[in-house]
């Protein structure tokens, strides 16, 4: 956590990193109003906190017990793509941009326009099948 950038998500009821961490690691220090990782040795380095932080206040240092110092891997995630900046120990820089979704968040349709074969709870057809399969369902 970069002290100067973290503001403890003061306008929210919990910080964004607390909300998202899949391992419940992020904590808000009420005294300083800064968030921190309470157990870095249980961190998967999944970057969920880095990507969601509204202030881009989180950088990853890399597991100190096997990674030489000096590198940095930082994402900038937008609504439809992610931009990665990779800095090597020797200061080389590489940048990559990848798409992350093809339709805007919040607009998907669960059935995606496919009808379901029948209403029988005991039939082998799942919701949206066989349309979503694009072929007949394999049965015996």
């Amino acid at each position, binding site marked *: 956590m970069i002290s100067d950038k973290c503001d403890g998500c003061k306008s929210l009821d*919990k910080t964004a990193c607390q*909300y998202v961490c899949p391992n419940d690691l992020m904590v808000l220090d009420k005294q300083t109003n800064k968030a921190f990782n309470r157990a870095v040795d249980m961190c998967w380095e999944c970057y*969920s906190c880095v990507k969601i932080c509204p202030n881009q206040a989180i950088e990853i240092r890399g597991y100190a017990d096997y990674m030489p110092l000096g590198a940095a*891997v930082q994402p900038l995630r937008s609504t439809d793509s992610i931009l990665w900046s990779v800095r090597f*120990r020797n200061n*080389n820089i590489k940048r990559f941009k*990848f798409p992350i979704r093809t339709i805007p*968040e919040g607009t*998907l349709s669960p059935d995606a326009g496919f009808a379901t074969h029948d209403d029988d709870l005991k039939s*082998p057809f799942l919701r949206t099948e066989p349309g979503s399969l694009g072929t007949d369902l394999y049965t015996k």
Partner: protein
Amino acid sequence: MAACGAAYEAAYWAKKHNMKVTLVDKAAMERSGAVAMGLSAINMYLGLKDGKNTVEDYVQYVKNDLMGIARDDLVANIARHVDSSVHLFEKWGLPIWKDEKGNYINEGRWQIMIHGESYKNIVAEAAKRALNELGENGEYFERIFITEPIINNGRCTGAAGFSVREQKFYIFTAKAVIDTMGGAVHIFRPRSVGEGLGRSWYPPFNSGASTYFTLKAGAEMTCQEVRFVPVRFKDAYGPVGAWFLLFKSKATNALGEEYMVTRADELKKWAPYGTTKPIPANLRNYLMFKEIEEGNGPIYMQTAEAIKELAAAFPDKEQYKRKMKELESEAWEDFLDMTISQAFLWASTNVSPEEQPSELAACEPYFISSHSGASGAWVSGPEDLAPSPDYHWGYDNMTTINGLFAAGDASGASSHKFSSGSFTEGRIAGKAAIAFCMDHNAPAEAGNELVQQLKEKILKPIRLFNDFKDYTNDPDVNPHYIKPKMFMFRLQKIMDEYAGGASSGFRTSKPLLEKGMELIQYMKEDAEKLAAGDLHELMRCWENIHRLWQAESHIRTLLFREETRWPGYYFRTDYPEMKEEWKCFANCKYNPETGEWELMKKEIVELT
């Protein structure tokens, strides 16, 4: 993934029958579970609509990889539906790589490439929307850690857990319960034990909750011996699939020898599986272990060689340059989509994959039946595909306990479902659970006495801590209790040294396992003395109790199967060969009434 699939499907059928669906998540659904970081490929897609493969092809592939041990009916059931899930993912906005004709780009025969950074966000959005369509009958809870099944008269009628964020104890009652709580990590000691402890290949927050839940419910379990040992890029555990399959890279020893070629004779010993392509994952591991035993490490993925060969198909200088750039981007995306630490390790050690090879190593063992492991609950197969009454006893994916269903890493003997298959199996279980509810419509109850007992039991580590914390100056060091972190280290040490962990070269034997079991029994007793200073630590306490039960069922089943069948997952030095008499499932069951364990063989019936 399985939980999202279950909610997606159950919500649809529940709406038609005015039923309620509740999803309970340990974390925040958009970034919870194994796909939290994202994925760079979908490993299970058959291409049935284009006639690329058949359901039978997939069954044969899975069974061969698992050395003959798989439930044909369960694998076939997932395989016949999985393409539907993948097509839905695409419609929901998941970017799938396509060629100029608009066809998916395959990584391997069954694998397709994706831009999967937001894979879980997208799937969670679909699950949430499906629940929303139910109105007030669709609910989801986040940051609730489920710990215990509620069993009434032999039927599962709910689950108990607690919030990791506020002082709330939860009892969920339900006519049917679907267990989709993932696999298990940190049971064996990891290779990195400092800060890198958390860099397990499978996520550290998948801690055995699924297995604990079904074991404690009294459900029959299968394949508890079939752990998975992935060979990955060393230390950061980056994926190898794209390198082996898409880039056609080779793995060699330090001398540049391709051990899959030089040691091919060894594979004949494990026929027919070892002589069938693709060669089972565990046998590929095994040949690598032999190189390391003989001092021929480090083992390398020859990335530079592979990239150069692929680009060589473009003799024009400009085209070559463009192709190299494209391959470089694909190689980095593979890691950035799903194991960012590996990209970090490349950067911190100045690695350019197109210029030099990278080290490979075997990870510590994990319990993950959605991949090339197989451990999980023994569940009912579908009526039309299950070849025998032993495989079919009612509702798809129901365990041997009425009303308790399992999918994803929670169900066993149906390996290689991966993300798409786990979501699909969740869908199968979701529909079947609603069918069960319609047929068993009596109100589900927990009972006041049971609720009180569970509350006392689940919150005990907090009470124990408060009762004794003032005895010492350091709350972590106290003779009256044990904190969950040291408890986990104790378990990892036992499993690593006695049950064939990484530092024991994945070798074990009856005397070692029996000694390990003796030490596990002390841990069972000391589990009563786990202490938690806060709600986060209470979660850690229960995670480690779950791990302990996964470990115990593992050791018991390792002892039961008197042969070596997956030499690259574990090797029984006292029974070094594969035996025909053990071409069967090894199942186990814990009896919650008597506390006794029962181990049994179950026949392998072919799908005809």
